[in-house]
Each structure stands twice: as structure tokens, then as C-alpha cells.
């Protein structure tokens, strides 16, 4: 290979080409090499990507725009699938954003035992097959699973505990966030977090639990469906899209480093102020980017959702599942109509992503995108 390049017509060597020249510019490749490589790349992209995607729209509109929208909006099962996706995906996004920010913060700002394990575990959903992921949830929450019999017998009895626990947690976090950071303003109960947080959380837990029980908000002795129901879909989707936000944020936060945050603290900012004034503006593009990718993946998730949904039309079918079902029923225009919506989402994601990349590049060079126009000419 090397000898062949060396004897190419650009620079014939006098000696019988024992080795390639020490230095050769990248653009010195022979024209035929360039055309061949470019042509191959274009061909592969065309055959594997452009033509199939175009075909989705062609097939979707095969019997006209009227039929397209009829296919999308008159079929109640399809309509339900779209609505279900629009319910499940936002919940998964919110969960993953909270988790992603928390994990990225912990990994890039603290040293703690198990840090490398956590870093590795974040990637796990990428490497586990979605079908296996779905199966895991079935084995835990399904009828034959560990919690299955209990959930079926009296599943709702855990809900008051969960609700009370979340309330108590919100109280504890809220206490620290609302606590004045200036020592002189900390009077009365603000001075005793060690007392207020455990006792307050416990009291809130008890009261909330008692109220829920007394009012009978949750049905008793009723099966709480997780598998073959929306909670299972949310769980499976969240699991599969779990790494996106954290994966985007960790390198960004590592690159920025903790100095600006320390500076904010030394200037008197509270943790909350520091987070919103310094951390969030610095990582916002990475965060948006991660959320967009997460959204694209969550909308299109098939394998894990397939396993936990039970594939019940009009109940647990999400858009990708609906596409497959319509396809199996030989309803090609209907199937391609739904597919075109997902494809549009994907293309939209791609456009936003590349726009963001230019924005991020600009903000990397100039501190922030807006300042290019806002700042004075130097």
C-alpha cells in the first residue's frame, strides 16, 4: 500500500521505492483516490440513509395528504399511541434531567468511594440490550416477578408511603435551599438543621400518610399495574435513555472545572445562587444537547417498551409499537404516516443539534453566543 502511494504519478521516486516519503501532504492524494473515497461515502449515505428516509415520506403520502392526516388522527388507537408517547417521554425526560444533573455534579465535583463504579454504571443502559432491560422490569414488577404477587394483591398500599416520602424529601431539600446563607439571618429554627430536618421530615411523612389513609385517596386491595401499563413504559424508557444527559454534562463540567463555582461561593453566593448563576449558564448548551438526544431516543424506543407494554392497542402502544402493529396488519399507509412523524422528530433533532453545535462553538470562543453582537467591537 505504502509503496504504491510512493510511486503514484504525483512524485515518482528514482529509487525502487523502498519506503514512503517521510512527509506527504494530505491533499497530495491522487485525484482518483479522492473521487473514489468521496463517491463511496456519498453512495453509502444515499443508499442507506437518504433513499429510505425519503421513501418513508413517499409511502406516507402515497394516497394523498388527506389520507395521510386521516391515518394519523382518525384511528383512535394511533391517536392514543401518539398521546401516550407524548405522556411517557416528557416524564422520562424530567426524571433523566434531574438524575443527569445530579450524577454529573457528583462525578465531576466530588471524590467519593464508588465514584468510578457510578461512572461505569451510568453507561450500562447503553450496553444492555433494550429487550433485556425490559425483561428486567418484567422480572421485578411482573406477575411472576418479585413484587408481582404483592402489587397484584394490594399494590396501591405502597403509594401513600411513596408520596409521603417524596414530600418529606422535598421538605428536607427545601429547608436547606431556603435557609439564609448569612449566619446572622439564621434565627430560631434556621439555626438547627440537625433538629428540624429529621423531625420535620418525620412529622410531614406521618401527617401526609395519615391524611391519605383517612381520606381513602388510594384504593385498597386493588392491583397496581406497572407492567403492561404506563408506569412500566416510563420506567423502561427512563432506563434506556438514562445516560444521555449525564454523558453530555460530565465532560462539559470537567472541562469548566470548579473554579468559577468556588469564586461565586467566595463572593458570598449560596449553593442555590451558585448553581443558577454560574453552573447552569456554563453547562446550558451541554444540558440542552443532552436533553434533545435523550428526547430523540425516548420517542423512538422500541425494544424495552415492547417487552413491558404487553402491546395492548389503545392502552399501552407507543408510537414505535403502533408503527410495527400497523405494518403487521398490512396497513402500510397508516404505518408510514406514524413513521413519518417519528422521522420528522429525528430530522428536527438533527437540525437543532447542529445549530446548537455552532452556538456552542461560538460560545466557546467568545464566552457566550450573544456577546458577539452585544459586546463592543474590540
Amino acid at each position: 500500500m505504502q509503496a504504491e502511494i510512493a510511486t503514484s504519478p504525483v512524485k515518482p521516486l528514482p529509487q525502487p521505492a523502498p519506503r514512503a516519503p517521510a512527509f506527504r501532504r494530505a491533499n497530495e492524494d491522487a485525484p482518483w483516490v479522492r473521487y473514489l473515497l468521496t463517491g463511496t461515502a456519498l453512495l453509502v449515505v444515499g443508499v442507506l440513509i437518504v433513499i429510505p428516509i425519503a421513501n418513508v415520506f413517499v409511502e406516507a403520502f402515497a394516497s394523498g395528504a388527506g389520507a395521510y392526516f386521516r391515518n394519523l388522527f382518525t384511528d383512535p388507537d394511533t391517536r392514543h399511541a401518539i398521546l401516550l408517547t407524548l405522556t411517557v417521554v416528557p416524564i422520562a425526560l424530567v426524571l433523566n434531567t434531574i438524575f443527569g444533573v445530579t450524577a454529573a455534579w457528583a462525578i465531576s465535583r466530588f471524590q467519593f468511594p464508588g465514584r468510578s463504579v457510578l461512572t461505569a454504571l451510568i453507561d450500562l443502559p447503553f450496553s444492555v440490550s433494550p429487550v433485556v432491560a425490559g425483561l428486567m422490569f418484567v422480572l421485578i414488577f411482573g406477575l411472576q416477578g418479585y413484587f408481582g404477587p404483592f402489587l397484584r394483591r394490594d399494590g396501591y398500599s405502597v403509594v401513600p408511603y411513596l408520596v409521603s416520602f417524596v414530600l418529606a424529601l422535598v421538605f428536607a431539600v427545601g429547608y436547606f435551599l431556603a435557609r439564609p446563607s448569612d449566619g446572622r439571618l439564621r434565627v430560631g429554627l434556621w439555626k438547627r438543621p440537625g433538629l428540624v430536618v429529621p423531625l420535620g421530615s418525620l412529622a410531614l411523612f406521618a401527617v401526609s400518610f395519615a391524611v391519605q389513609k383517612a381520606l381513602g385517596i388510594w384504593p385498597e386491595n386493588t392491583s397496581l399495574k406497572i407492567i403492561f401499563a404506563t408506569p412500566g413504559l416510563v420506567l423502561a424508557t427512563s432506563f434506556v435513555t438514562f445516560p444521555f444527559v449525564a454523558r453530555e454534562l460530565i465532560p462539559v463540567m470537567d472541562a469548566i472545572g470548579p473554579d468559577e463555582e468556588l469564586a461565586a461561593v467566595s463572593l458570598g453566593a449560596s449553593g442555590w445562587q451558585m448553581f443558577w448563576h454560574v453552573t447552569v449558564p456554563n453547562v446550558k448548551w451541554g444540558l440542552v444537547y443532552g436533553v434533545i438526544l435523550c428526547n430523540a431516543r425516548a420517542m423512538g424506543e422500541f425494544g424495552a417498551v415492547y417487552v413491558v407494554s404487553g402491546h395492548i392497542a389503545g392502552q399501552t402502544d407507543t408510537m414505535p409499537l403502533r408503527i410495527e402493529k400497523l405494518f403487521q396488519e398490512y396497513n402500510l399507509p397508516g404505518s408510514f404516516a406514524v413513521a413519518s412523524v417519528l422521522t420528522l422528530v429525528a430530522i428536527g433533532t438533527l437540525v437543532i443539534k447542529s445549530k446548537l453545535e455552532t452556538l456552542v462553538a461560538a460560545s466557546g470562543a467568545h464566552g457566550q453566543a450573544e456577546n458577539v453582537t452585544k459586546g463592543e467591537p474590540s
Partner: protein
Amino acid sequence: MSIVIKDVNKRFGSFVALDRINLTVPDGGLLALLGPSGSGKTTLLRIIAGLEVADSGSIHHHDEDITGYSARERKVGFVFQHYALFRHMTIADNIGYGLRVRGVGKAERAERVNELLKLIRLDGLGTRFPSQLSGGQRQRVALARALAARPAVLLLDEPFGALDAKVRQELRQWLRKLHEEIQVTSVFVTHDQEEAFEVADHVVVMNHGKIEQVGSPAEVFEHPANAFVMDFLGNVNVFHGRLEQGKAVAPGVEFHYPEYQQTEARDAAIYVRPHELWIERKKNGVPSLAAKVLHVSPTGSRTKVELQAVDTNALITAELTSERYAELALKSGETVHVSARRVRVFEAAQQPEYSI
């Protein structure tokens, strides 16, 4: 007394960063923490700032124990080596941040920001972003930001470390002048002894988490407390030998050392600064060392001469005034006699652990 540090200890795992530090920073003074990397100087600064928590010990400010105070309550201004300006905020917003989080109104904030922009000679650049400024300008902004909330103490962590030589020189003088103007108690960290001597009026030399010596620049330089300080503050020639009967004897050379008159010999390290060495063409009765001139580099007012002892092959650096150099007209390769006008001797137990 402004800041008093009492028995402060800090470990990172098994590494001892600070080992029973006791220090007093005088009110309105400008104090330099000087030491090699890993000596604990930055850790000490961060503990004073409240960005790091000491394992034990206490910090007092005007007789008030501030050990348990958060960074916000301590009213300190902290300047980071790499500026740590908020990259998404304008210069004005950066400077005003300390006031913003303390709930100071917009008008008052703008007034103070303008005042500080004038002080750092960047008026009119308030709408720029940090990335549009040079390194020196950024560090001035960082300083203004730290000063905005009128801190009781100003702490600077290697403030000129990331700047090029010329800007560093200018900023040192500027900081000195600024300190004279505003008289805020300041502590700054540096590993550059020249910088510490030029800017500070008190120098604290640290090594391995311990304070080696505290004093004015002149005191520390002229009367180093131990071999480490001697070695760390500028170039020095070391001869390993012994003391006996008013003499310091190293292989091939003897120096007068009247402080030690006992007959019993003792191991010692003999330190001579390059400018305290004297070069003669001929022996003139003073104990001296024969050495070959390896290299002569005339740099401005002083000429550096590198020599090699004839007997021991030890390398020696001497510094001559340009007048003396002109008088001698030394050439590489010739043999001369080197004597010391002043030696400092530290006994073997105090040998420096630090080496350049």
C-alpha cells in the same frame, strides 16, 4: 491583629498538607506565603477563605472566632490563579456579582462597579466579556470583583502565575501601589521568591506543611533560619563538609567561620550565595579554592561565572559586578581562586529536603 491562625492541621488522605500552623497576619499588611508546590500554602489560603475546612485548629479575625463561618460570612475577597471569571457575564456583571448576591440594589451596584473599573483602569470596558480581555486585564477584573463587596481580607492565590513575564512585572508594582491606596489586609500565595520580596512586606516561607520562617523580606533573605530557607531563596552554592576550630572545611576548601571555636569537628553544610563569592587570579592568603572557569555570561549589571573546582569537580556559580568582571577579564578555561566573603553554615541535621 487582623487574622490569627491557631494550630491549624489539614490532611488529604495520608498526605499532611498543614502541620500545626500558627500565624498572625497584621492588620493592613501585605503578607506573602512563599514555598515550593506541595508546601501547603494554597491550602492555608483556602482555609482562611473558608473554601476548605481545617481538620483542627481555629481562625480568628479581630478576636472573633470565624472557624465555623462560611465563605460568605467571612467577608473575604479571593483571587484565583486562573482568574475564574464568570465567562457568561460581562465585566461589569462579574465585578458586581458579590454585591448582587448580597442583595445590593442596582443603582448602588452600578456606582460601585464604575468606581472599581476606574481603579483597575478598565473604565468603558464594562460591557465586554472576559474572553475579550487580555490575561492581565482579566486578573485586574478578578481583583476588582474580589474587592467589590469591601472585604475585610483580600486573598490572592498565585495571582500572577498565569501571566507572561512583562505583564507580571507591571501587575506586581500595580498591586503594591493599589495596596498602599486601599490598605486592605492581604495575603498572597506565590512560589516565586522575587515576587514575594517585591510585593509583600511580610514573607512566610513554608515547606511540607510547616512554616519555616516569618519575617520581612530583608530579614528572611539576610538571616535565613535554616538550610531550606537559604536554599529556597535564590541561588546558592552548597559545600558539604565539617566545622572545626573557627573554620568551615569542605573538600578542597576552607572558609573562616569564627562562630564555631570548639575543637570537636561537626558535620555541616556550607552555603555561599553566588554574589558573596570573590574571584582572584592569584592566591592572596585567604583560604580559597582553585577552580576552572567554564562559562561567563554577562547579563546587565551582574556577570554570572560558572566554575568547576579543580580538586573535586564540584560546580560553583559566582556573580561579579560588571566592574569587577571588567577588571578581571575572565576567559573560559583559565584557572582562578575563589574565596567567600560570607558563608552560612547549617549543621547536618538541618540539611534541606528541598532541592531545585
